[in-house]
């Protein structure tokens, strides 16, 4: 409990006062829930939830060759996105394995903001720094200087618009498209607002200087009172992203998984000119027979969870669950799993071994849940 390495969010005291219970996440003590993870989940689907995700890492890439550099360092063609646009991308190693999945925002012609998972902060920062050697570009780890707050759910735009202290919003939020961002000020400090998220709902992510994070949280929360906004922890964040079919690094993605196995082939741009790290490995493709990520649904209420075996009716193990829960929105168990492609091709019935009981599973397309777009 007194591990000197433990990191605390700048919002930690607010969470303590709000009655949160905490969990260790990549060395950070982060809120897992504020009482009921289920009601937090339902709030995000029906009204809105506010998440502290300050543990995420922010790395600034700037310089005249920033675009070219990212085309080389990452799997996507980042030079093609325009100012204020965001793009989901992957950082691969030369063997085609995934070092991290990232969201990249273009701030100016020469400036990009790379958002990485907390647990991969140093791996991403050091890989980018190494790869920058032959480019006129600077890589700066700003993770400690920036905090990240997400407001997600159908009421999130109304809440953001009603928040006191947010001014100079360059693009009105009702005109901001999904995966675009706008700059703004919060209490006269720079604020980046992305229409991005990790829940499958409409929502915004607020990148704010760490010294203004507590004040922004308070302002968003106050504006949200009229709109059913509740603080939401990592437990609901996990069930929300699972329903939305979004991969989580360390579960669906890892250094030993190729993008194509995880269904992320589209994130790798093989048409872009020039080399990029991991290109030849991705072109060669994963080894024949590599397991593929699929969605599974189960009957009943018992969930297949991370690490449980996927088996055929004769008991052969043909895969492994990477994430699973009883879906709060859908009411039945859902899971993501890596499965032998031959089993998938043949349509062989599969089961999840739930602590000794075999439960029949149906292979389904991801995502499990898709919001109604109005």
């Amino acid at each position, binding site marked *: 409990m007194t591990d000197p390495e433990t990191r605390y969010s700048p919002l930690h005291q607010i969470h303590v006062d709000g009655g949160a*219970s905490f969990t260790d996440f990549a060395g950070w003590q982060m809120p*897992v*829930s504020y009482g*009921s*993870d*289920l*009601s937090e*989940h339902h709030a995000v689907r029906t009204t809105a939830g506010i998440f502290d995700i300050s543990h995420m890492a922010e790395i600034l890439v700037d310089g005249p060759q920033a675009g070219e550099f990212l085309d080389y360092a990452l799997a996507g063609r980042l030079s093609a996105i325009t100012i204020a646009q965001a793009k989901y991308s992957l950082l691969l190693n030369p063997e085609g394995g995934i070092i991290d999945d990232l969201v990249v925002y273009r701030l100016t012609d020469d400036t990009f903001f790379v958002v990485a998972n907390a647990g991969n902060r140093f791996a991403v920062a050091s890989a980018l720094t190494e790869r920058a050697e032959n480019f006129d570009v600077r890589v700066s780890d700003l993770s400690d200087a920036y905090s990240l707050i997400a407001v997600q759910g159908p009421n999130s735009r109304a809440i953001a618009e009603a928040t006191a202290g947010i001014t100079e919003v360059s693009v009105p939020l009702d005109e901001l498209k999904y995966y675009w961002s706008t700059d703004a000020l919060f209490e006269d400090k720079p604020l980046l607002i992305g229409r991005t998220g990790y829940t499958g709902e409409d929502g915004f992510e607020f990148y704010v200087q760490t010294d203004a994070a507590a004040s922004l949280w308070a302002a968003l929360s106050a504006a949200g009172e009229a709109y059913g906004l509740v603080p939401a922890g990592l*437990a609901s964040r*996990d*069930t929300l992203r699972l329903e939305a079919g979004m991969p989580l690094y360390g579960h669906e993605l890892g250094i030993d998984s190729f993008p194509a196995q995880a269904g992320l082939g589209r994130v790798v741009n093989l048409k872009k000119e020039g080399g990029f790290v991991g290109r030849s490995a991705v072109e060669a493709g994963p080894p024949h027979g590599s397991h593929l990520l699929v969605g599974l649904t189960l009957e009943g*209420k*018992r*969930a297949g*969870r991370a690490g449980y075996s996927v088996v055929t009716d004769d008991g052969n193990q043909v895969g492994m669950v990477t994430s699973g*829960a*009883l879906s*709060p929105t859908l009411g039945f168990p859902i899971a993501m799993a890596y499965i032998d492609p031959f089993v998938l091709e043949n349509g062989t019935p599969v089961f999840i071994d739930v*602590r000794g009981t075999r439960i029949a599973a149906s292979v389904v397309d991801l995502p499990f849940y898709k919001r109604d777009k109005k």
Partner: protein
Amino acid sequence: MTDQTSLQYTAEHEWVLVEGDTATVGITAYAADKLGDVVYVELPKAGSVVSGGTVVGEIESTKSVGELFAPVDGTILVANAAVDADPSLVNSDPFGEGWLIKVNYTALPTLLSFDEYSALIAE
């Protein structure tokens, strides 16, 4: 409201209410909080013979699975159908409506007092 000082406890975070030869068993508020929102319970059938210390059921939350241990030797009289229908009772009223099983016990081991259990979870 159940008087928690009148209950006995186990190190597995269960409470036991002894009345005559019947032991009513549930999980403590501490255990329910640690689990998070309970979404499914698997309880033993009436008539099952159970022995103290063995796993007889499961309590699942969205994020994890807890095991239900039989705290005593005996025969299951009844499992709580209300919890089967609405598992959230385990969170909302763990010492009352959220009870899990009633056991006709043949032997009662030494259990923890309220004070002893309180000290255990304060550690």
